[in-house]
């Protein structure tokens, strides 16, 4: 019973997901066949989720430690553009000079450098994380747009692009489970385990919940924060590359979708508290991710939303969902606070009656 009580919010979110999924499957029925409940639609939904999911993990860890990185999208954009440009370099024989694994490592090094810069700004110069990363965000996106002149860089390395194409398991002859989604789910699973069962995972919660107490307990806050910034940036690069593998290009279109912002919304929806700390692990955040992506993606399958005059609603919904998620976060935090006060009162009364 206490399990249900504890996981009440997550169960609600799951139910909502089922409802949205069912509605979308029904309304998209045309000629007796559902367009939403079919191989291609599910596959592209899962593709969208796999890049967003990886980026969500890094963001969720940062949020739990009470920090944030709003430049995640533009970092990943800079990373994938560098990646695509590296792949285009040819050697004297006219063949590709750099294998994509090496290109990935070079880009990862860039990400680490960026993360170290952020850590320096936030920990040494004591800038607020959100304002420092907003400032650097415009630097990265400015450089990326200037480098590509606002256009796209094609990626046609077969071994890399195939990774984005491959899917397994089929519904009616069409496969729907992309390999990328399996990788993404595995990463989320590993981090969820890490957060609960390792010492470092507990430290993240502690730093977020009460930095002063964490310092007194002997935790090096700067170190934790630096590791999380690096972790976020590298995961952002991986998420960005998943997007590129499936679109076969690097383009500024990547950051207009703002996958890390929707990842953040999903994490907050799933119970990762914005104030740092918070009891829910990545399980709730994963459910939030599935719910949010299904909802926004299924909007395309509602007959009315295909009309252009509903564009405004889709723009508005992004903000509204974030506000609703935050209100849920705030009310549950208030409830937890009340429960704690009640429990303390009870304990005091019990002690008094004993005396």
């Amino acid at each position, binding site marked *: 019973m206490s399990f249900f009580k504890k996981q009440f919010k997550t169960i609600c979110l799951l139910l909502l997901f089922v409802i949205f999924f069912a509605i979308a499957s029904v309304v998209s029925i045309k000629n007796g066949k559902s367009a939403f409940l079919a191989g291609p639609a599910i596959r592209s939904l899962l593709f969208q989720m796999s890049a967003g999911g990886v980026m969500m993990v890094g963001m969720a860890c940062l949020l739990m430690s009470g920090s944030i990185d709003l430049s995640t999208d533009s970092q990943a954009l800079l990373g994938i553009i560098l990646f695509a440009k590296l792949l285009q370099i040819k050697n004297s024989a006219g063949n590709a000079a750099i294998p994509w694994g090496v290109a990935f490592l070079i880009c990862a090094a860039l990400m680490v450098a960026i993360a170290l810069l952020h850590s320096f700004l936030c920990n040494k*110069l004591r800038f607020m994380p959100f304002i420092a990363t907003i400032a*650097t965000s415009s*630097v990265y996106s400015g450089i990326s747009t*200037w480098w590509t002149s606002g256009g796209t860089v094609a990626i046609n390395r077969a071994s890399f692009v195939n990774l984005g194409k491959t899917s397994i398991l089929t519904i009616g002859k069409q496969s729907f489970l992309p390999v990328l989604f399996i990788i993404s789910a595995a990463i989320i699973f590993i981090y969820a385990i890490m957060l609960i069962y390792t010492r470092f995972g507990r430290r993240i919660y502690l730093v977020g919940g009460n930095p002063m107490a964490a310092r007194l307990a002997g935790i090096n806050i700067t170190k934790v924060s630096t590791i999380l910034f690096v972790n976020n940036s590298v995961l952002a690069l991986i998420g960005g590359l998943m997007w590129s593998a499936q679109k076969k290009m690097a383009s500024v279109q990547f950051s207009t979708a703002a996958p890390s912002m929707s990842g953040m919304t999903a994490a907050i929806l799933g119970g990762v508290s914005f104030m740092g700390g918070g009891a829910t692990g990545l399980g709730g955040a994963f459910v939030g991710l599935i719910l949010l992506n299904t909802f926004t993606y299924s909007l395309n399958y509602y007959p009315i939303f295909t009309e252009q005059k509903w564009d*405004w609603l889709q723009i*508005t*919904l*992004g903000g509204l969902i974030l*506000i609703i998620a935050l209100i849920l976060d705030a009310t549950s935090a208030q409830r937890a606070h009340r429960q704690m006060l009640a429990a303390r009162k009870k304990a005091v009364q019990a002690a008094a009656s004993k005396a």
Partner: protein
Amino acid sequence: MNSIKQKDSKLRLFTQSKMFSLLLLLVLEVVVFTVWAWIKQGGNSFLTFKSLTTIINTMTVPGFLALGAAFLMISGNIDLSSASIGAFGAMFIAASIQYFHFTWWLAIACALVIAIAFGVLNAVLVNEFRFQPFIATMAMSSVIKGLLAFISMDPKAAAPVATTITLSPQVVDFLGGSPVKILEFIGKKKFFAGSAIEIPFNIILLIAAFIIYGVILRQTKFGMKVYLVGGNPMAARLVGVNPKKVSYILFANSAFAAGIAGVITHSKTLQGSSIALQADTFTGLTAAMLGGISFGGGSGGMGGAFIGLLITRAFAQGMLAINASSYITTAFSGVLLIIALSIDFASQRRATARAIKGV
């Protein structure tokens, strides 16, 4: 004894003040851009009256954004939705005059009331639901952008979202030409037109607003409250100041200033555009921060904010003078913000060091 006296001399104090470092930064910026533009263009293209006129002309809109942002930041809050609110105001005036034949004063009044309503909504999210100000206002900003797309639709044509609304001559004739005359006066009237420096009407509005706000901040009880709430909210509450009330007023005020920025945006072009002010999300903030208003709240003033504004505008004009692409300008505006933050950090550390020394 003598040395102490010298230490406290006015000149010495001035050279140690933040205002001095700001002016130094402004001069440095002008010199760098002049030299850079000279090398690139083979002649003086930055240090001219023409640049000065352009700077004055483009200063009003970010100026009003900075005004609202500065007050909020002194009280320890932030509003990232002000640019969207301004864009919404500009679009609202255009749409209401064009489609519903509002008179000019009704359109402006409605736009300002709606702007204030958005500000109060921000304050509710921050004070009642205890959201972090930046995330609440960021979410609001995207909601407002959606509504902006909504009001820019033409109800008669049932057409897809329009990107700009221009007042058509028929509508202007229908209304007797009055809305345009007044709006044109706000947006386009220039004193000393044709001379070396033209003074637009709206810059006078801006300077008047800066003086009024500066006086409120320095001379009135409310101004003291703003500093107190920003410096130490707990202490403010203990001396009987209601931080919530101050926060509500300041969010509403920030949105109101953004609304005025929207009115001026509209009156300059007599258009509503769905991408208006998009590049100005952080110009107001950067200006205020450069002016010595720190993020923790409790410090800074309007004079500094005005010089901060001049620095950001001179920067934008300088990037134009050296023919930098707009993408590079975006990149460097981020760098400018980081410089502003670093100056804030350095001056705070110096202040702490001085306090520890007990001077």
